[in-house]
């Protein structure tokens, strides 16, 4: 079984991002970049399927500028077999990403496609669902458990009310939630091995996909700052303030 995994390069989750002074975008110069945490979980899941003898080949795909080759090397270090970068400017919108991934899927014919549920920069939470629609595949989003057997994937999903389990026939699209697994640390020998694994570069033109967007970003501004509050000395004082000052309890 072949597994395709989409990985995005994003600002590291520990970085507190700042908005550019011109309010056009967030500051990306000299900011630490990493693999999107949900994508790391996606790669880890694919690797575990391979270790169980279910998956035979893992192909990692990333869309963006040259920097995302670094992200692909991380995926290869975790255990992906080969990688494909689609060279575009950064910040291509989700629909275009989904179209590009759909073209890759048409040539690779994977049985399972795993994406993160959400990129922590755009916070879109839509690419996997769009990809599934474009390929007319079933989807299981926000996965916290994936069991592949008998030509289908049984997936437990984290939903607002609790957990839901769906069975989707393969090929299918799965998007990862936080509890699916805990990604391994990449050992040094695997970093060395990753450097030797194949990494192809393609262009949107080769895939026949336009990355033009119908959505314009008018501005990017900092959020309203919360006024810092006060420290109270005791529970009694806290209750008194909540009753008489904030008036949020009776």
């Amino acid at each position: 079984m072949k597994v395709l995994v989409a990985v995005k390069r994003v600002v590291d989750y520990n970085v507190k991002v700042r908005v550019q002074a011109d309010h056009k975008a967030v500051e990306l110069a000299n900011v630490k970049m990493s693999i999107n945490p949900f994508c790391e979980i996606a790669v880890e899941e694919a690797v575990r399927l391979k270790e169980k003898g279910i998956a035979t080949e893992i192909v990692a795909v990333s869309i963006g500028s040259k920097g995302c080759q670094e992200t692909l090397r991380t995926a290869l270090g975790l255990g992906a077999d080969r990688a494909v970068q689609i060279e575009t400017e950064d910040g291509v919108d989700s629909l275009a990403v989904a179209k590009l991934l759909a073209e890759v899927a048409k040539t690779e014919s994977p049985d399972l496609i795993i994406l993160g549920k959400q990129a922590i920069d755009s916070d879109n939470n839509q690419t996997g669902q769009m990809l599934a629609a474009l390929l007319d595949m079933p989807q299981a989003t926000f996965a916290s458990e994936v069991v592949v057997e008998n030509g289908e994937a049984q997936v437990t999903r984290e939903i607002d009310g609790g957990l839901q389990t769906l069975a989707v026939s393969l090929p299918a699209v799965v998007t990862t939630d936080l509890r699916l697994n805990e990604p391994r640390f990449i050992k040094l020998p695997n970093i060395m091995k990753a450097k030797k694994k194949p990494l192809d570069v393609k262009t949107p033109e080769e895939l026949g996909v336009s990355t033009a967007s119908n959505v314009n970003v008018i501005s990017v501004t900092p959020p309203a700052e919360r006024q810092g509050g006060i420290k109270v000395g005791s529970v009694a004082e806290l209750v008194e303030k909540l009753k008489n000052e904030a008036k949020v309890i009776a």
Partner: protein
Amino acid sequence: MSILIIAEHDNANLKPATLNTLAAATQIGGDVDLLVVGANCQTVAEQASKAEGVSRVLLADNSVYEYQLAENVSKLVVELSEGYSHILAPATTTGKNMLPRVAALLDVAQLSDVIKVESADTFVRPIYAGNAIATVQSNDTVKVITIRATGFDPVSAEGGSAELVTLSQVIASDKSRFVGEELAESDRPELTAANIIVSGGRGMGSGDNFKILDGVADKLGAAVGASRAAVDAGFVPNDLQVGQTGKTVAPDLYVAVGISGAIQHLAGMKDSKVIVAINKDEEAPIFQIADYGLVADLFEAVPELESAL
């Protein structure tokens, strides 16, 4: 302009997030149709027809829609989409699961988690865990949007009298099948609809310890929430997670107990009206946004709080 909203419900009750989405639609302007897709959900359609600002309720009631699977519901929405300028759904796990499929099938972008309507084509949404706020303008012929409930005060659930239209389309879902579910049962208010929330973090130490929050929550009529760390550690189920990748809440009062205040947690609760933090580490970042901070051991402060209420 004409707007189609996909109602959030569980086949028995219309969920409040629908009313917030209706409020967003009202700000965009135009006729609003509310689509109820489910099975044996006639009562939901009746509730929907009373909501303020709805012109028509479209009811697709069939066993194939019982679990609102994304595959067939998205196709149904696309079949109905002709003539609508906007298609909206609440930014719940149901809306987030299904609406991007609609967008892709219509070959348009989706705007996720919109918190403000500037005009019929310009919207505001948080990015980077709410550390930046983007204003975006869409030139797509149909604007497909999920609405973050905390950005909009709900319209009234009563007073409307929308026309009820029964749909006949039956689209089966042959590639995806419901197997089972484990839904949290609780007498407490729903997290996203609660006026007061008491949340616990890793500092609670265990699932058993977490129960000390119940006493406070009971006295306040509050919902109970949690940080990711508390969910990951298995103290509480996943549906309690508040944050960038969990639920977004904005109650009148949010009490964070044993939560450090990571940006991913703040993303889900920093629009609360009043924030209280109880933490033994006076340097914890949560204190920077708390209106009232109490530096204390939670195992002493929480029981004391319960008896003081």
